């Protein structure tokens, strides 16, 4: 599926909830079911720092697509991460670089991506796009 298709899917899924608590409960579920990442990736090297919740993110290239792995010590952050991974992982570098991720706004979670919010998610997206850029540069050599 393309990034846009997945985004639409998520908007639809979240459209089922009309109250914030259900939405957050769902987010928490998703956070819990995020594949646990290797403890040995939870090092300073992969850490997005300066935030209230710690966020680790790593990336690798497989068949022209970027596979992201990420984790956080806070479950809501993890929930949002799982959405981002669903959308961005397994996509081409170009598509990742160009993604605008407006679905978070549409499903009412935009607040979590405010650059002033110290949950690390904004920095995480920046980091994901940087990974994509780096892979793209490597490919074109």
């Amino acid at each position, binding site marked *: 599926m393309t990034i846009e298709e997945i985004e639409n899917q998520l908007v639809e899924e979240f459209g089922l909830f009309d109250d*914030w*608590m259900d939405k*957050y*409960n769902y987010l*928490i579920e998703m956070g819990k079911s995020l594949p646990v990442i290797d403890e040995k990736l939870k090092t300073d090297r992969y850490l997005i720092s300066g935030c*209230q*919740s*710690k966020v680790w993110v790593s990336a690798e290239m497989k068949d022209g697509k970027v596979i992201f792995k990420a984790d956080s*010590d*806070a*479950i*809501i*952050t993890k929930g949002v991460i799982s959405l981002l991974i669903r959308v961005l992982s397994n996509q081409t570098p170009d598509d990742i670089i160009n993604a605008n991720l407006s679905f978070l706004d549409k499903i009412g979670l935009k607040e979590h991506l405010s650059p002033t919010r*110290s*949950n690390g998610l904004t920095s995480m997206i920046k980091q994901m796009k940087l990974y994509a850029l780096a892979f793209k540069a490597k490919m074109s050599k």
Partner: protein
Amino acid sequence: MKESTLNKIRSDFPALNQKINGRPLIYFDNAATTLKPEVVTDSIATYYNSINSNVHRGVHFLSQEATDAFENARISIQKFINASHSHEIIFTKGTTESINLIAYSFSKNFIKEGDEIIISVMEHHANIVPWQMVCEEKGAKLKIIPMDDAGNLIIEDFENLITEKTKIVSVSHISNVLGIVNPVKKIIEISHKYNIPVMVDGAQGIVHKKIDVAELDCDFYCFSGHKIYGPMGVGVLYGKEKWLEKMPPYQTGGEMIKNVTFKKTTFNELPFKFEAGTPNVGGVIGLQAALNYLSATGLDIIYDYEEELLKYAIEKLSLIDGLQSYGTASNKSGVISFLLDGIHQYDAGTILDKLGIAVRTGNHCAQPLIDSIGISGTIRASFAMYNTKDEIDKFAEAILTVQEMFG
């Protein structure tokens, strides 16, 4: 406090009258900054809309009025904390600047290589980093008063830290993380036995305790306007005349000079020596309005009520399973910090916010304290005179909701 008084107080704070995420705001982030009574913003507006002028040295009427208002505010604050002279009250932009000023000016004349500075383990970064800078600059050493598990500073250890190289002691009056009221009077007594001056970081102390600097006998006391119902951008440094006289200026420029030539500049007297540039007259007038509001409401009434509130909150939270409190010592004021088993403070704070409750989560700018406890942060609820038991009940319920959601 009588219910009518409480209602009156609540109606004086317009910010209380709003909904967050559809629910009435419960503001428990008072240790970060308090809400402001309307008299504060009114007095600021009145100042700017009438006598608005720069102070000192102006011959015209408005400038005189502004100067009188500004200097009267200084006298109000002197009386509020019972300082001996109005020129012992220096206006700064906040506690952080007050401490930077002392760290710079005191160390310039009194700290040399090998000297020692004592702070405590529960200091706010504002009372750590400036001293680290001094230590780095001068080759001095920072020593730390430890605390016990309940959050009491260990006084015997403190006394053992003192050597003949100790030049200053700087401790917080009330911990902004744990709410512990530190035994500053005891610390001052001990330090003075060895002729060591003590600076008290009163950012949290000023709002929950009657401050009498004469009785405390502290050498310096600092606080921020915005944590005592006043505006941001204004703070106070109280210093004993005998120390301030011996300290060189900090920032330089207009107001603080007597005579400037390209060859030689001489400085003004206290308090102006430490007040370079156009002061925040509007801010100072707003702070005075806040203090007047407190005095008119009655300090004792407020302190008693805050104590009652805190006790009530501690009791309520103690009934919740899986809630771990920090700083359980008995001498506490205004602040509680806790964690919920298996739940990250950020998650808890996010859901509490959705429920209309503003708390702060994280390390509260006191990372060494948080590290020493061995956690990554806390959930902090901090109270002010306009909070209610009903709000605390709602808070306790909300915590249960949080536990359910993450259970």
